[in-house]
């Protein structure tokens, strides 16, 4: 398969390519447009396309949450992207549904904000009607049922509902396809595979709050390092028996130099002034 390079050099178009590479002595010493063989396969340019496309439309963010001995840690980045344009570096992706329940945002920002606010309203109505707080199971089921009824209509939401209720810490993953999963550890967004790698490896059930927060911070940082659609500020929240509390918000640029401080390289060769002759 020869690459058609005639457009590159119009002056050489008239000369047949077979005589191109060897200038004939005394004859027409003008080179024709060079062309080179490409491997003969079906779709050379599209080889990796499939792998890249699979993750392209994934929700451009990194969020994670996990249950451990002291409750639930919830962490997220703060970048909003529109294709290749970073539209904001300071988006609040952890939404406070009520004082003891948090939701994370991945996918369409408007969808997540609206439906989490709506969930907060429904949870409050449940409290007033039943004189007791709604469980995390119930809240996530409410949201999942709403999203299921809108399936196929283009909502894009990948959220985790984390909270502490009578049964202890609870964590559910709910998405706009109507899926709902109960689990101990989740990460959602385009940076989630990177975050999973760090999170899965460092996770232990019996960690202190500081260790768990540091694990979450580290996992989000590594995801923002590799994923272009994640960045900004890492927010880490902790949900305990008395409700949620924001633990930290660190810029990932600063975290980078904290984890990998610049090392002064030894000078190999130093230029010195030549002695005056």
């Amino acid at each position, binding site marked *: 398969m020869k690459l058609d390079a005639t457009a590159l050099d119009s002056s050489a178009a008239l000369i047949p390519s077979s005589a191109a590479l060897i200038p004939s002595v005394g004859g027409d010493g003008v080179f024709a447009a060079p062309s080179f063989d490409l491997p003969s396969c079906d779709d050379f340019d599209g080889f990796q396309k499939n792998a890249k496309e699979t993750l392209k439309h994934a929700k451009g963010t990194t969020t994670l949450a996990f249950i451990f001995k002291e409750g639930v840690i919830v962490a997220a980045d703060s970048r909003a992207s529109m294709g290749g344009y970073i539209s904001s570096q300071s988006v609040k992706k952890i939404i406070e549904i009520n004082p003891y329940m948090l939701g994370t945002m991945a996918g369409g920002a408007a969808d997540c904000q609206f439906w989490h606010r709506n969930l907060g309203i429904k949870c409050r109505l449940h409290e007033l009607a039943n004189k007791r707080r709604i469980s995390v199971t119930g809240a996530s089921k409410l949201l999942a049922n709403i999203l299921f009824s809108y399936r196929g209509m283009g909502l894009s939401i990948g959220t985790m509902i984390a909270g502490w209720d009578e049964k202890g810490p609870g964590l559910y993953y709910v*998405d706009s396809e109507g*899926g*709902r*999963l109960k689990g*101990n550890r989740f990460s959602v967004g385009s940076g989630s595979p990177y975050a999973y790698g760090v999170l899965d490896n460092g*996770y232990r059930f019996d960690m202190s709050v500081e260790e768990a927060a540091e694990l979450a911070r580290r996992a989000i940082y590594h995801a923002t390092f590799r994923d272009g659609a994640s960045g900004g500020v890492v927010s880490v929240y902790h949900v305990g028996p008395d409700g949620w509390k924001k633990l930290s918000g660190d810029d990932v640029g600063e975290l980078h130099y904290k984890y990998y401080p610049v090392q002064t390289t030894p000078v190999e060769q130093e230029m010195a002034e030549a002695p005056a002759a």
Partner: protein
Amino acid sequence: MECVFGLVGDGFAVVAADSSAVHSILVHKSDEDKVMLLDSHKLLGASGEAGDRAQFTEYIQKNVHLYQFRNGIPLTTAAAANFTRGELATALRKNPYSVNILLAGYDKDIGPSLYYIDYIATLHKIEKGAFGYGSYFCLSMMDRHYHSGMSLEEAIDLVDKCIMEIRSRLVIAPPNFVIKIVDKDGAREYAWRKSIKSD
């Protein structure tokens, strides 16, 4: 990549399913239970789109319970299967559910039975069946080794053979499986076959 398969033995029926909850290249969970206890003597193994699977099977389960509350007696397996198929058929031309189902049950006078219900509302009463990519390996294995009136040990051995085959031959094979059985003593979980421990 979801696999559900089942077969009927001597006085029991067994349904096995993988337990991975997957989203493009990510495995969110590898201990998701996809075989639901429909009522005391029925199992519903489902595979399909995440939201549809959970929501549709719960809808069927609640309606089966409602029938029992209203009428004082439980539905037969055949009735439950036909009800499920009817719901899929009604939704098919408007708002289809992408779920494939194997419904197994035990009735006192009929014995064990297994029904194959696919996402376009096909219904068949069968002795052995399978859904998903795993079916390409399981169906021929079950055809080869199955005979009617298998004992529990023989049936579980066949199920294990199928799981081994899926694990070794299917690219991106699910690591963990759940096996449930239903017989005169009711529907219950028989075993998990785990090759990845998840906390």
